[in-house]
């Protein structure tokens, strides 16, 4: 934790050292961090008790406002703002003692799964995932233990999985969206990323103003969609997730039940139509006024969204209700507390491939949210926990989806999953990644 100005200087130097190689930060907020450290020092001197996040350094995705720091949204120019107030979640975290160390890179508007310009600390030639890629990379490189992201179809969970860290999307609407740039308001959710489940949980609790306390696991069985996993993910990812799911069931003394979730192709279609249509509604007026303020790819997405007829959008909302009901019935019928899938069907792709080959990039963008879109479409909480490494030493994530508003219970399940053999393998690999980044001779 940060205790004084010396600690701030050391963290700032480490954050700036990451900029050329990993590119996690848009801006390092040294002045704010110094001010917060001085304030914490004064509180200590006055004999005030420590707060839940006292001196914990955090990073904030650059779609979320931090007072006095521009919010750039990852766009060339469009929508940049200069907030005078913190977003509600940042305000809550700061009130709990957190110290904002910087703003992290986002894929433009949060509408993409790559986060160009940010590289994976496990392998700098690989993508970091998106859209909260900067937050995941900052944690994976060991600079800090907690960060805020946003998740509309998997944007917290996917980069967490590819970077070997934990990413939590709470039940939609649980965390305030005040001061957070919108993409698709019916799916947007602020989420937390952490080096561990406990790190994710403590930032979530602070942001949601939930007092510190034990997270109790909900009683129930574990659902596992074997067919969708084996069909939709690479063999290495499927095997790692299946092993971790079996271990979780054994550790919990629970049954692993094979289930069939709603078709990922359907949930992906619903998510795409809803996200593009809503994003166009949010951003079309600005797109008209300042088209080149957006990058060409996002401009195309917004134009495609504006062309979606109202009838198709409404059909997607009806489809969402059906999928929501179907999923609720499935969980009730099998007495499931959580459902396990891979987070991302693949491990981190080479940057060179997606930077030069448009078809490869589009394939990646379509494939990454295959398993994460469901929880986003129906608003359920979901978390990605590391569960293994592929042959190249790249992290694999397992997603646990829970019951609506059972966020703390889901965190407790994730904490148990974190003790699995695959998760421990990733933790060891991440420790050596962190050592590499801390080494002055790297």
């Amino acid at each position, binding site marked *: 934790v940060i205790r004084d100005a010396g600690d701030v200087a050391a963290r700032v130097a480490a954050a700036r050292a990451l900029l050329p190689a990993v590119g996690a930060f848009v801006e390092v907020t040294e002045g704010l961090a110094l001010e917060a450290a001085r304030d914490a020092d004064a509180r200590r001197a006055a004999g005030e008790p420590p707060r839940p996040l006292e001196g914990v350094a955090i990073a904030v995705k650059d779609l979320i406002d931090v007072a006095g720091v521009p919010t750039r949204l990852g766009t060339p120019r469009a929508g940049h703002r200069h907030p005078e107030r913190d977003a509600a979640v940042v305000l809550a975290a700061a009130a709990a003692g957190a110290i904002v160390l910087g703003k992290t890179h986002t894929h433009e508007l949060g509408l993409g799964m790559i986060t160009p310009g940010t590289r994976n600390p496990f392998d700098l030639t690989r993508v970091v995932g998106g859209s909260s890629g900067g937050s995941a990379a900052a944690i994976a490189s060991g600079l800090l233990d907690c960060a805020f992201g946003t998740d509309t179809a998997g944007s917290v969970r996917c980069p967490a999985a590819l970077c070997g860290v934990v990413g939590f999307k709470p039940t939609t609407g649980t965390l305030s969206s005040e001061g957070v740039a919108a993409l698709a308001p019916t799916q947007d959710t602020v989420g937390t990323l952490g080096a561990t489940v406990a790190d994710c949980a403590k930032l979530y609790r602070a942001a949601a103003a939930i007092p510190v306390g034990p997270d109790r696991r909900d009683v129930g069985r574990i659902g596992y969609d074997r067919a969708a996993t084996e069909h939709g993910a690479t063999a290495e990812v499927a095997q790692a997730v299946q092993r971790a799911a079996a271990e979780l069931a054994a550790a919990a003394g629970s049954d692993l039940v094979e289930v069939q979730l709603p078709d990922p*192709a*359907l949930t*992906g*279609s*619903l998510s*795409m*139509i809803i996200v*593009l249509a809503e994003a166009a509604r949010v951003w079309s007026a600005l797109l008209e006024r300042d088209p080149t303020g957006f*990058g*060409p*790819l996002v*401009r*195309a*997405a917004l*134009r*495609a969204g504006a*062309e*979606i007829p109202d009838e*198709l959008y409404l*059909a*997607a909302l*009806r*489809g969402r209700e*059906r999928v929501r009901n179907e999923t609720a019935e499935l969980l009730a019928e099998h007495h499931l507390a959580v459902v396990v899938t891979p987070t991302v069907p693949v491990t981190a792709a080479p940057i*060179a491939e997606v*930077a*030069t*080959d*448009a078809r490869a990039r*589009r394939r990646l963008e*379509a494939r990454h949210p295959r398993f994460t879109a469901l929880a986003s479409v129906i608003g359920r909480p979901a978390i990605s926990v590391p569960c293994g490494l592929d042959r190249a030493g790249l992290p694999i994530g397992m997603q646990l989806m829970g019951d609506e508003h059972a966020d703390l219970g889901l965190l407790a399940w994730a904490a148990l999953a974190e003790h699995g053999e695959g998760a421990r393998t990733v933790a060891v690999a991440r420790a050596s990644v962190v050592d590499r980044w801390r080494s002055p001779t790297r």
Partner: protein
Amino acid sequence: MDERSPVPEPEQLHDDELASYRRAVAHAAARLARDDQEEALEPQDPDAT
């Protein structure tokens, strides 16, 4: 970056991407229509009100 694969100009990128999104939306619309049809063919509960 491979010099043999020049990155297209922004407007070309935009046009290619827009065409790709249009195809993806059409594909998604077809998938939704199939789901709607399947739903319509589901036997209804005669006791449902």
